[in-house]
C-alpha cells in the first residue's frame, strides 16, 4: 500500500476528510486540506489528522506527551522499517518475530487502547500478513491476534475482504484430488 492510500485509509478511520493527498517533488506525501493548509510528511500528516478528529482513536493517541512520543515512534517505525522491510525475506521474518513478541504481553502498540500507531503499522504490514501461509500465521500467533482484532473493526477494514485467520486450514488443502 502506498503512502497516499495509507493516509486516505487512516483519515477515513478517524472520520476526517482526507483532503487532497499526493506526492510532492521529493516523493513525500503531502496533504492539502480545507483552507489550503498544506502538510508534508506521513507522520506529520497523521498528527494533523488526529488534531482534527474527534474519534476515540485520535483521542487515545494524545492523552499524554509520553503517549504522543510513542505513537510517533511507531508511525516512523512503520515507514522506515515495516513497509520497506516487508520486501526482504530475512528482514520480514525479523519484523514479524519482533512484533509477535511485542504482542505477547500487549493488546495494542501503545498503552491499552487503539491508537494511530496501530493503524500505521496495520496498513504497513497488511501486504506482508496477506502473503503468509496458514502455518506461518499460526507461528506468529500474537501478531495474528492483534491483526485479526483490528481488521474486524469496520473503520479499519473499510469494506475490504477480511484475511483468513482460521486455524482449521486443513480442509483447504485436502481437496481430494491427487496432487
Amino acid at each position, binding site marked *: 500500500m502506498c503512502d497516499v492510500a495509507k493516509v486516505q485509509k487512516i483519515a477515513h478511520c478517524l472520520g476526517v476528510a482526507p483532503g487532497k493527498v499526493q506526492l510532492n517533488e*521529493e516523493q513525500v506525501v503531502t496533504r492539502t486540506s480545507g483552507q489550503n493548509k498544506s502538510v508534508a*510528511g*506521513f507522520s506529520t500528516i497523521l498528527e494533523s489528522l488526529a488534531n482534527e478528529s474527534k474519534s476515540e482513536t485520535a483521542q487515545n493517541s494524545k492523552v499524554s506527551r509520553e503517549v504522543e*512520543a510513542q505513537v510517533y*515512534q511507531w508511525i516512523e*517505525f512503520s*515507514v522506515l522499517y515495516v513497509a520497506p*522491510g516487508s520486501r526482504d525475506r530475512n528482514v520480514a521474518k525479523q519484523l514479524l518475530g519482533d512484533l509477535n513478541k511485542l504482542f505477547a504481553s500487549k493488546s495494542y502498540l501503545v498503552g491499552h487502547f487503539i491508537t494511530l500507531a496501530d493503524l500505521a503499522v496495520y496498513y504497513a504490514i497488511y501486504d506482508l500478513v496477506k502473503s503468509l501461509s496458514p502455518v506461518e500465521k499460526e507461528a506468529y500467533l500474537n501478531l495474528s491476534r492483534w491483526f485479526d482484532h483490528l481488521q474486524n473493526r469496520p473503520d479499519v477494514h473499510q469494506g475490504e475482504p477480511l484475511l483468513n485467520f482460521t486455524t482449521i486450514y486443513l480442509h483447504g488443502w485436502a481437496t481430494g484430488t*491427487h496432487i
Partner: protein
Amino acid sequence: MIIYTNEGNPLGLQLLMLAKFAKRSVQLVNLNLNDAKFKDFLILPTLELDNGLRLFSPAAIAKYLFVDEGQLRDEWLEWSTMLLAPALAHHMAVGHRADPNALPVLNALVKKLDDCLKATPYLAGDKLSAADIAVWSLLAPDGTLKGAQNLESLHGWYNRVKALPEVQQVLAEQPLKDLSFNALQQSNRYGGLHHVPLKRLSLADAGKLLAETASTVADTVTDEELAAAGASFTYTAPKDVQEQRTVLPKAGERNVLITSALPYVNNVPHLGNIIGCVLSADIFARYSRCAGYNTLLICGTDEYGTATENKALAENMTPREICDKYFELHNSIYRWFGIGFDYFGRTTTQEQTDIVQEAFKDVHSAGYIITESVEQLLCQKCDRFLADRFVEGTCPHPGCGYADARGDQCDKCGKLVNATELIRPRCKVCNTAPILRSSDQLFIDLPKAEPRLREWVDKAENGWTHNAKVITRAWLREGLKPRCITRDLKWGIPVPHSGFEKKVFYVWFDAPFGYVSMTKRYTKEYQKWWQPAKGTDVELFQFMAKDNVPFHSVVWPSVLLAINKGHTLVSHIMATEYLNYEDGKFSKSRGIGVFGNDAQATGIPADVWRFYLASARPEGQDSSFSWNDLAARNNSELLNNLGNFVNRALVFCEKNFNSIVPEVVATEEELILLALVNRELRGYINSLEKAKLRDGIRHLLAISRHGNGYMQTQQPWVLLKGNDEQKKRAATIIGLCANIACLLANLLFPYMPSTARTLFAQLNAKQTPLNAEKPLATLLLPAGHKIGKPAPLFAKLEQSFIDELKTKYGGSQETKASVQSQSSTADLEQAVQAQADKVRQLKTSTKDKTVWQPEVSKLLDLKKQLEEAKKTAVAAPASAPAPSNGGQSVQDLEKAVQAQGEKVRNLKGSTKDKTVWQPEVNVLLDLKKQLEAAQKAAKAAAAAPAATTAAPPAASADAGQVKALEDKLAQQAEKVRTLKAKGDASVWKPEVDILLALKNQLAALTGAPAAGGQGKGKKKK
C-alpha cells in the same frame, strides 16, 4: 536519562545534543544488539527516560523534549529521518551496498537545505530548533560537506551551529571522527537503513554540489601505505614481449587453461548464457593474459544428440546442415561480443571422434564399462529406437490423463514421465504405436570410480565456487549410480565396440572431450595442455552455469580418473547462478528477453553490454537483467564516473600542457590518493585471481571515483590561473590523473577491450602487464610523454530509448502477432533494419558526413513509413473473433468452442489482467452453453425421428424471428468490434453484454427442435 547506542552510531550524537540543549543530564551506554542480553532493544539509539519509558526514534524524542515549535519544525524533523538519513546511509555505504545513485539524490536534498537557509537563518525560522540539531548531527559525521561547493548558506549555518557552546561541549565528549554511517548497520536487526528505498526525486538535477567520495576514507590511510605508494610510483620502460603464435604451457610458469561450457548448437544464446559461460571465461582469460600467465581459452559448439536430430526433422534439413547453420550464428554472436577465443571449434570433427573412441577404449580396458539391457520403445515404421522426446502419449499419472504428454515430461501436470510408462504411446514422427523392445546399452561404472573421485574432490573443491561444491556434495551424498553412455541414435559418435556399431555415444560422454579435441584443432601439441609432462602445472578453469556442474565435477572427472593417464582435471569450477530477465525468465518461444542477436540490434555498443553483464553477473545468487539498471549503470558509472574522470584528465593535459604529460611532484595529497588507488588495485587483482568479475568492476570504478574526488578537491582549474607555485601543483595533479587514467585503461581491458584500446590510443600508450604479485600503481606515463587526441568514451542512454527497448523485448505477444500478420510491416521492418545496419557501417568506416547523410535520411523515411504501417495494422484486425452466428451445427460449435478455449488459454498465459481475458471467458462459456443445447437437440432428434417430422413447421414459424435476431446480432457484433478496436473497456463492456444477451436469445430459439440439429444427429449416429 540514559542513551543506549552502538559504537559509532551518528544518531547517538543527535540524542546527546538534544539532551544538552534541553539541559538534561544523560549517561551514554554502548551496547551490541547481537548480544542476547539486549534482545529487547529494537533500534539504537534508544533513550530511557527517568520514568523508565524507552523511545527509539530521535524525532519522537526531539518532539518530546521540545514540545511545540510549530509544524514547520515537525516537517523538517520528519524530513531528516525519512529522507536525509536514508540517503546518507546509502551514500556512505561501502562494499556491495555502495549505491552510486545516492549522490544525485543527496545533492538535491542538500540543495533544498541551502535554499531554505538562504531565506531564513535557521530551518524553521529565526530561532534554532530541534530540526537544526537533527539535520546538523546528520551532516557532521562522515564529513558530508567536506569538498562541497556552491553551498554558502548551508556552510554558514553549519558553522554557526557548530560554534554554539552546547555543540562544542558535546563534541568534546563525542568526537566526530568516531562516528560513521556504517555503524547504522548494527543499529537494528532490519539491515540498518539499507532497505529504506532511495526516493527517486523528480526534481531537476541539482548539479554537482558534494564531493564524490566520503572524505573520511582518506583519514584511514596508514603511513606504511603512503610509503609503499610513494616508493612504487616510479617509471620502468616497458619490455617488448613477443607474443607467441601458439600458446603452450611451460614448466615453472603459471599455465592457465580456460574452458567455457559448450553451448548447445541449436539454441540461440541469451544474455544469461553469455554471461554465464563465454563472457565470463573471456574476461578472465583477458585478465590472465594481462597478468602474464600462459593462457589458453577454448570453446565451441556441442552438436551431437537428439535435439539436433529433432531440429533437423523440423526444418527438413540434415543434422549436419543444421549444425553448420547454427554454428555460424553462435560464432557471429560471440565475435560481436568481442569474445577472444583462442579457438572456437565444434564437436563434429574427426579429432573428436578419434579422442572419444580412444577414451572409450581406455575406460573399457580399465574395466569401467558394464553392459545392461534397457527397455526402450522402438518404432517399427521409422526403424529406430525412440528417444524420450520422440514419443508422445497419455500421461500415466493418476488424475492427469493429458493426451499429449511428452516422453520425458508431461506439460500439463509438469511431472517427469518415463517414456515406457506412457499410456498409448505414439511415435512423434509417424504417429504409429511403438513397441517395447529391450536393447543392450553400455554403462560407465561410476560406483567403481567413486572412491578415487571422492579423494580428488576433497582436494580440488577448494578452488570451486560455493554452488559447485554444494551440488557435487549432494551428488556424492546420494551415492553414484552407473550411467548409460550410449544411445540408439544416428547423429553421434559411433561406439567402437562389437555389437554396438549401430549406436552412438550419449552427448554427455562425448561433449566434455570436445575441450580436448578443440585444443587438438588449435595445436598438434594439445597433450601438453591436457596431459602435461611432470613439472608442468596446468590449472584448469571451467566456466558454466550451475546446471552443468555435475557433468564437470562428477561424470567427466570419473571418466578421466578411470582412464588414469594423467589428464588435467578441473581445479576451478566457476559456476554462475541464473540471470533473470526483468524478474522473469528468458523465453525464446514467448519472445521474452534479449538474445545474442538482439543485443546487436539495439545499437548499444558491445562493450557496454559486456560491462553491464559482468557487473550484473549472477555470482552467489540469481540476478536480474533490467533495462533501467543497464541505463543507470551506463549513465552513472561509465559516463559520469569513469568516462568523466578520464576525459577531464586528458582534456586538461591537452589544453593546458600542450598534450605533454607534466611531471608529478608527489605531496601528501598525491600519496594518499595513490594509497587509496593501491587498495582498490589490490582488491581488483585479488578478485580477478578468483574470477570474481563483479567485484573486480567495483574496485575499478572505485579508482576512478577516488580520482574524481581528488580532482574535485584539488581544483586544478583554479590553480592554473594562480602563481607559479600553484601552476606547478596543477601540473602535478594533471600528471597524476593522466597516469591513473592509463592504469584504468589497463584494468578496463579485460571487461571492455575495444574501449580500452580507444583509451590507449588517446593516451598514446601501450598496454602494460599487471603485476599480480605486487599490485601497486606505477608511473606509466613519464613526464614528457605526448598523449593523443582525447574524446568522450561513452554516450548517454536516454530513458525514452530504454523504454522503447523495454517494450520491444517485453514479449507482448499481441503486438508481435499483429506485426507478423501484416506482411508489409514485416517487410518494412526488415528494410529498416538493413538500412540501419548500412548506416552504422558507414558511420564507423568514415567520418565524412556527406557520405552517410543521404543513407540516414533514407533510414528516417523508412522508419516513418513503418510507423504508419504499424498504426494501420493495429487498427485493422478486430480484436475479437467474429461472433458465431445463430443456428450453428454442432460441429461448427465444437470448433468454435475449441478455438475460443485456445484463445482464453493463451490470454491467461500471457497476462494476469483479469479485465483482459474475462470477456473472452464469457464468450467461451456462452459458446459452451450453445453447444450443449445444440447437442441435446441433436440427441433428441436422433432418438425420436418421428418427432422431427412434426418439428419443421414449428421451426419455420420461428424462422422469421430467428432471421431478425440474427440480423440484430450481426449489427451488435459489428458495433462491439469497432468499439473494442478503440480500446476503452468501460465503453465496450456494456455493448458486449447486450451482444451476449442477444446470443442467448438466439440460442434459446434455435436450440429447441432446430432444423440444423437433425442432420447432425444422424451423422453422429
